[in-house]
C-alpha cells in the first residue's frame, strides 16, 4: 500500500469561528478499501467530511492546520467543485436530496461536476442497476420518496459523478433495520466495483462489519484506530459503541442470562 495512493488526512484541525471542532486528526483511506469513522454526536465526523469536500465555508468553518491529499494531489485549499472533479464525492448527512426536483433531475444534478457524456450515461446505467426503484420513480419529485428511497437517491446521485472515493455521512440514520442492511449491501457492492469508501456511522456494528479499518473520534480527536476486526473485539469499543454490557464483555454466555436481568440481580 502506497501512502499517497488513496485519501490521506494529516494533522487536520478545523475551527468554526472560535469553536475548535477537530484537532490533530490523521487518517487514511487506501485505494479500494472501506474505512469507517465512528463517534458519538458532536464528535466531529461531519466536520471531517466537510473538510475533505471543501464545504466548511458554508458552515462558516475553516481548516486551521493540516492537509488533505488524494492520490498525492492536495485537496485542502481547493474548491468543492475541484474535489469532485478529482473523484472524491460526498453523500451528506440527512440525504439532502433536491426535494422539489424529480428523481431524474437529481441524478442529472449529480453529474454536473463532470463533463463526460458517455461516462455519465454509463454511470446512470450503473446507478439504475443498483437501485431499480429510481428508474420506476424517475419522474416523481424527490421530496415524496420514502426515507430509504431518498438515501438510495442520495447515493445514486453521488455515483453519477463516477467517484474514485465515496464519502458517506451516516447513510443508515433513521432507516429501519431491513433498509439499513440493504444500504450496507449496496455499499459493499459499490466498493467491490472499485470505489474506495469512507463511511461515517453511529451504527458501529454495521460499519465495522463493512470496513477493513476504523477510526474512533471523540470530541474532535482520534482516540482509537486499527483494523475493524480488532476494534470490534476491543472491550472499549464493544462497551461504548456496540452497546454490549460489561457482563457480556467478560464472556459470560449470553444465552444463560435471564431476559429480565433486573429481577435476577
Amino acid at each position, binding site marked *: 500500500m502506497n501512502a499517497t495512493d488513496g485519501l490521506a488526512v494529516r494533522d487536520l484541525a478545523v475551527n468554526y469561528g472560535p469553536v475548535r471542532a477537530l484537532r490533530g486528526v490523521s487518517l487514511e483511506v487506501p485505494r479500494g478499501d472501506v474505512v469507517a469513522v465512528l463517534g458519538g454526536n458532536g464528535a466531529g465526523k461531519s466536520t471531517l467530511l466537510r473538510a475533505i469536500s471543501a*464545504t466548511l465555508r*458554508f458552515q462558516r468553518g475553516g481548516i486551521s492546520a493540516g492537509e488533505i491529499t488524494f492520490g498525492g494531489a492536495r485537496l485542502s485549499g481547493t474548491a468543492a467543485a475541484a474535489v*469532485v472533479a478529482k473523484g472524491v464525492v460526498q453523500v451528506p448527512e440527512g440525504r439532502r436530496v433536491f426535494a*422539489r426536483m424529480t428523481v431524474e433531475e437529481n441524478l442529472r444534478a*449529480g453529474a*454536473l*461536476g*463532470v463533463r463526460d457524456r458517455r461516462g455519465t450515461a454509463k454511470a446512470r446505467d450503473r446507478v439504475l442497476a443498483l437501485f431499480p426503484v429510481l428508474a420506476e420513480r424517475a419522474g416523481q419529485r424527490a421530496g415524496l420518496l420514502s*426515507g430509504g428511497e431518498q438515501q438510495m437517491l442520495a447515493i445514486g446521485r453521488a455515483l453519477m459523478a463516477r467517484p474514485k472515493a465515496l464519502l458517506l455521512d451516516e447513510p443508515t440514520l433513521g432507516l429501519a433495520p431491513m433498509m439499513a442492511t440493504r444500504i450496507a449491501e449496496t455499499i459493499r457492492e459499490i466498493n467491490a466495483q472499485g470505489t474506495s469508501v469512507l463511511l461515517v456511522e453511529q451504527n458501529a456494528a454495521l460499519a465495522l462489519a463493512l470496513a477493513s479499518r476504523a477510526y474512533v473520534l471523540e470530541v474532535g480527536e482520534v482516540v482509537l484506530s486499527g483494523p475493524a476486526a480488532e476494534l470490534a473485539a476491543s472491550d472499549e469499543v464493544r462497551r461504548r459503541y456496540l452497546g454490549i454490557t460489561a457482563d457480556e464483555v467478560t464472556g459470560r454466555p449470553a444465552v444463560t442470562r435471564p431476559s429480565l436481568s433486573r429481577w435476577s440481580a
Partner: protein
Amino acid sequence: MITFLELLANGISIGALYSLIALGFVVIFKATEVVNFAHASLLLAGGFVVAKLHPLIGFWPALAAGIAGAAAVGALIEFVIIRRANVTSHSVLAIVTIGVDIVLVTELTRQIGTDVLALGDPWGDQVVHLGPVAIAQTRIMALLAAGILIGSFLLAFKHTGWGVAMRATAEDHETAALMGIRLGRVSLGAWAVAGALAAVAALFLCVFPTPGLDRSTTFAAIKAFPAAILGGLDSTTGALVGGLVVGITEAMMSGYQNQLSFLGRGIGDAAPFLIMTIVLLIRPAGLFGTRELSRV
C-alpha cells in the same frame, strides 16, 4: 367594450415586459438569495447602449449590443461586488445593491441629461386594427418578444444542465456545491441573464407610445418589483403572473381614471404597490412563493 379590450391588450403587453424584468429579479434571488435593488440600473444601462449606438451601427446591432452590455453590467456587479462583499447576511447584500443602483442610475441620468433619447426601432407609431380594436404595433412586438424570451427561458430552466444547476443551487447551496456545481458560475449566469432580459424590456418600455428613453424610465423598472414580490420572490411562475397582474391593473386604472377619480389622481401608478400590499397581507410568501415540499 372596445376601450376595455384595448386596455386589456395594452395591459397584457406592458405586463409581459414587467414579467421579463421580474423574471430576472427572481432568477437572481433564486441563485444568490440576494434581492437585487440594482435592477433598474441594468435596465437603464441596456436602453442607454441601444440609444447611443443605433445611429452609428443600426438598430438591430445596437439592440444586440444593448443586451450584451446589460448582461455584462449584471455580470460585473456580481463579479466585482456581490462575490467579493465579505458579508454573511443577504439583507446586507441587498442594501449594497441599493448603493450600486444609486451610483449607476445617477451616472446614467447625468449622461442622458434632459434629453429624451429615441431607440431607433423600426416600428414607429403604426397602429394595427384587429376588428374595431386598435393596438400599437410596438405593443404587439413587445408581447411577441416577451413571449418568446419567457418561453425559451422556461424551457432552458427546465431542461438544460444550466437550468438543473440553477434549480439545485436555489434549493440547497451546500449540496449543490457537493455535486461539483460551481456556485460562482451559476450566480454570474443569473446576473447576466437578468441583465439581458432587462435590456429587452427597456427597449419596449421606451418605444411608441412612450417618447423615448429618459430619466423617468427607471420608474417603469420599479413597477416590476411589486410584480416579482406579489408573485413570490422565488417563483418563476410568480414573476410571470405578477407581471401580468401589475400590467393589466395599471392599464385599467389609468384607462378608467375618470370613473375612478374618487380614488385620487395617479392611482394607476400606485396600483401595483397597493395590490402587492394586499397580496402580502393575505399570503406573506407571495402568490406562488414556495414552501419545502419534503417529507424529511
